């Protein structure tokens, strides 16, 4: 057993982080907020060239030939940068929709929960989007439609969503800590006050617990592990962003601070693929199945 990412996996993560740092920094993020609904096609192609979409496609089919653990690390970075666009749908379409793997085709998809992200901005829509109704999306970076829920949730979609949530949660924790160090009140950094310190500490605890769950689920691919990862990662992202907002005080409530962007995206992702309720039910069933398997004695 060797849980840490390998050198290759770490290098992959660093590479994606560097690419996103260069091509999608804070300025780009804010620029994207100012032109809602429009994807940066050049960036999309760059992601394609870097193997973002073709990552799990076999080499024989022109892909990178890596697995779920690598995909999780890469999606974590996307979540950290708050990268917009139907990343997941396009990634899942690689090898099935021409041009998706290369980042030439932007793909949207109807997910099991009945939401469609980026319906109007995509070249191809997978699934039956008939009767889609636009929402006035709470997240300025994710246009949304809703359709009647249909289909079962795809575990890979759940896992990679959890990885994105993990990245966003990490970012929220980092922003909170940065602000807590810099902002002074009563003559010292607010991070010297235990109430603020403890908010930050709990945020990190949620992040690290979620990280262990997400990475493990990526390695085992087990549906119950994946469901657990999603619940922990949703919690880490949503609560992390809320606490980050609290740590920022009044500034946290403004459009100018990025905190709301983290929170809103985290909310959108909690609704994907059946939402947390479905995962809780799966994990409840798993308990009984495990008990039946082991014939555990009743006390």
């Amino acid at each position, binding site marked *: *057993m*060797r*849980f*840490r*990412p*390998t050198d290759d996996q770490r290098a992959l993560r660093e590479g994606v982080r560097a690419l996103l740092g260069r091509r999608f920094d804070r300025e780009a993020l804010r620029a994207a907020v100012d032109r809602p609904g429009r994807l940066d096609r050049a960036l999309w192609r760059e992601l394609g060239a870097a193997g973002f979409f073709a990552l799990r496609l076999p080499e024989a089919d022109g892909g990178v030939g890596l697995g779920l*653990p690598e995909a999780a690390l890469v999606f974590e970075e996307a979540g950290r940068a708050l990268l917009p666009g139907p990343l997941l749908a396009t990634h899942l379409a690689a090898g099935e929709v021409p041009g998706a793997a290369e980042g030439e085709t932007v793909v949207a998809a109807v997910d099991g929960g009945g939401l469609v992200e980026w319906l109007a901005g995509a070249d191809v829509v997978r699934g039956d989007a008939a009767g889609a109704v636009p929402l006035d999306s709470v997240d300025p970076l994710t246009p949304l439609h809703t359709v009647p829920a249909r289909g079962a949730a795809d575990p890979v979609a759940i896992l990679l969503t959890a990885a994105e949530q993990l990245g966003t949660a990490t970012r929220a924790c980092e922003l909170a*800590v940065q602000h*807590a*160090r810099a902002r002074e009140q009563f003559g*010292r*950094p607010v*991070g*010297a*006050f*235990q109430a*603020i*310190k*403890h908010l*930050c*500490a*709990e945020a*990190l*605890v949620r992040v*690290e*617990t*979620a*990280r*262990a*769950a997400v*990475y*493990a689920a*990526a*390695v*085992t691919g087990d549906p*119950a*592990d994946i*469901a*657990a*990862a999603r*619940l*922990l990662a949703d919690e880490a992202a949503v609560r992390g962003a809320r606490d980050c907002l609290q740590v920022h005080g009044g500034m946290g409530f403004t459009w100018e601070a990025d905190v709301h962007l983290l929170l809103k995206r985290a909310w959108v992702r909690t609704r994907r693929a059946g939402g947390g*309720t479905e*995962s*809780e*039910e*799966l*994990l*409840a*069933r*798993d*308990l*009984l199945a*495990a*008990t039946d398997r*082991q014939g*555990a*004695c*009743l*006390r």
Partner: protein
Amino acid sequence: MDLSDSPEDAEFRARLREWLAKTLPALPPKPSPDDWPGRRAYDLGWQRTLYDAGYADVHWQASPGVRLIFLEETERAGAPYVGAGFVGLLHAGPTIAAEGTAEQRARWLPPVLRGEEVWCQGFSEPGAGSDLAALRTRAWRDGDHYVVSGSKIWTSHAEVADWCELLVRTDPRAPKHEGITWLAMRMDAPGVTVRPLRTLAGSTEFAEVFLDEVRVPVGNRVGAENDGWRVTMVTLSFERGTAFVGEVVACRRVLGELAARARRDGRWGDPALRRRLGRLNAEFRALWRLTQWNVSEAQAARGGVPGVGGSVFKLRYSQARQDLYDAAAEVLGDTALDLGHPWVRDRLSSLSYTIAAGTSQIQRDIVAERILGLPKGR
């Protein structure tokens, strides 16, 4: 990232599983929770059984795979818990292994492994709990002995311990973190008085220990004189980092039993209860993964000594354990008020988890200051 067993690990697992299946049915019945001499004998007997089978030092092994497999398999099979061996095996022993001299290791480690000697932890004092460095128990040199006077409190298993890992103040004039020394003290030395304290569960889990001019050989000092705080940090990192990991598996078993019980009682149709148990399943799965992560990290980065990641684990685990037994109370209904049910006792004892081994408030300070780098001061 690889969570599968290596061929050697897989072989270890298979052999252990087979051995457990053969050995557990022959164990004597468990003593009652309040019978401490009985528990000592039982727990040491189990350790001796492990020793004879070659499993005694498994907690001290370099291979994280083997340690985790041992915890997983013994818990899954319902094997006895370390119990009275907790301090010796999980923090005093590892501290002596890391910080003691060759002579000290040879003196103290084999009896722990063979299940012959029980250790307790004499750190806390009435005036020094969270603020452990405020401890006042004094020790002064008299030839080749330290003479120790003062008192300790909340000392778990003190009644049945042979040895105590004891923190004393050897330089009262030094800054408070600098005048402390780590000693091994015999519990039957003249001048040691143990007065059991009753816990809220009605049991005598821990005790007050009074020390009246107790003579401790200088050779029982681990680390240098006045360097005890550093040694203490090693002890605490073992205590928080790895000492609780086996319990996570136990909690997962209890959770499965809760679900089975809810189904038997016709409560499974209640979606709120189901979802609550499902969420706890996520929690304990994640805690097990966090354990694997921490052990793997400690191995790779720190030669086996756990890092502050232990505080992250301890914060989350202590809360999750309380949530688990609150859920158990919901499943039990009126029976949740009956001390005769083991889950009710476990629920009471779970209340100590956010206090013992450093309170949650203190762990949050540690995480904030030592991991996140936030400024000191409150």
